[in-house]
């Protein structure tokens, strides 16, 4: 469906993740929530249509987009050059400060210190990508289905460190006070919206929308609500990741 179709129908179908708080998730009442959900709502407003959310899992977000089951993905998708060969990214709208977390008393200052360690990451996440790139050959990387399993693995001692996002600190602290801390930051990974390659209308619309919310402070509001921090400064371009359809 094209943007025009969506406008005609008065509905845009947005794919978000179903279990990745605080980005995109389904809350206990069964309603989608989180940063991506709020951005999706703003996007629908921008188009002047109603949003329809499809909660997706990591394994099926791309198929859902490619087969037209959703119009656009706001699904916590870290932007990498390799992935950009398959889907069309928009301009970035969020950034992940990714860190390695580990026990307070252990020295982990950089990738080299991960040598020989088992390190947990949520499978297919930005952390997975970053740590695999940085320490893939040195560390024993265990890829769990989601953040919950990843954190549980650290708590139960199945791994010695985990790659996590900015929220891991709070969670670890709540589960085991004062035991774990952030060790070092990985590269910042930006999230972009995903559309089907070659579909200019969606890409341009999404980019225009992102420009608008960046400019009018709406993104900052949503960011503060969910990420509890300032909007990072976004790069103008990323190597080999085009933001627009060529």
């Amino acid at each position, binding site marked *: 469906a094209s943007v025009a179709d969506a406008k005609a129908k008065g509905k845009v179908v947005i794919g978000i993740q179903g279990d990745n708080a605080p980005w995109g998730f389904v809350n206990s009442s069964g309603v989608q929530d989180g940063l991506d959900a709020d951005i999706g709502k703003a996007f629908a407003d921008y188009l002047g249509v109603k949003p329809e959310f499809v909660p997706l899992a990591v394994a*099926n977000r791309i198929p859902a987009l490619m087969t037209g089951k959703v119009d656009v993905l706001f699904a916590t998708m870290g932007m990498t050059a390799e992935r950009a060969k398959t889907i069309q990214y928009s301009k970035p709208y969020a950034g992940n400060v990714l860190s390695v977390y580990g026990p307070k008393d252990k020295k982990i200052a950089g990738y080299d210190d991960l040598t020989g360690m088992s390190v947990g990451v949520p499978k297919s996440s930005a952390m997975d990508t970053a740590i695999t790139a940085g320490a893939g050959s040195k560390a024993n990387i265990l890829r769990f289905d989601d953040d919950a399993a990843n954190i549980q693995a650290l708590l139960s001692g199945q791994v010695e460190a985990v790659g996590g996002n900015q929220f891991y600190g709070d969670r670890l602290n709540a589960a085991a006070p004062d035991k774990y801390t952030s060790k070092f930051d990985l590269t910042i990974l930006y999230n972009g919206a995903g559309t089907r390659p070659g579909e200019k209308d969606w890409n341009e619309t999404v980019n225009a929308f992102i420009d608008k919310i960046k400019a009018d402070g709406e993104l900052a509001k949503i960011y503060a609500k969910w990420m509890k921090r300032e909007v990072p400064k976004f790069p103008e371009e990323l190597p080999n990741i085009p933001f627009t359809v060529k």
Partner: protein
Amino acid sequence: MASIGFNELFFLAQGLKWTLALTLIGFVGGGIFGLLVALARTAEMAWLRRVTAGYIAIFQGTPLLMQLFVVYYGVALVGLNIDAWLAVAIAFTLHASAYLGEIWRGGIQAVPKGQTEAAKALGLHYASTIKDVILPQAFKISLPATIGFLVQLIKGTSLAAIVGFVELSRAGQIVSNQTFRPLTVFALVGLAYFLICWPLSLWGARTERRLQTAAR
């Protein structure tokens, strides 16, 4: 970080509802087509038996998850956009009919040959022979195995998450990601499955015993 409260339990219960609905679809679709598969597998035409054998090999030889994926997304690739319900109905039917068909083939072949011959000698036609003579006995013979498979199918419905169903397992995963208590959540989910499956298993075992004593 939330704790596991009423809301979470209610959410899990919603998931349970879908699990039961998906199970029902699998049972009905698998039952009907499984019967056809079993009959084709025991047919007199050699080519039909061979085709069905291939069908069974494919659906028993690949993970159900992949079958769901291929039916829902793969078919959409070639331009057929089907509803998620239809997709799970088709995938579960294919999957369950392969297994049930194989189980019931065994049952049909375990009915002594003399029974078919007696029916033929009385002039009964194929349909009547199957319906009045073979199936009632084959069904009895394969009942325990059938129930065993149905229990596995109930557990297998969890894979429907890939086409977007938030059934019991997926609900558990979601709750676990909100509460960060995967152990508690999955213990609850495990218990729920146990409570659905166990009565069925017990019934299966009881029937098996009853059939065995009756056969003596």
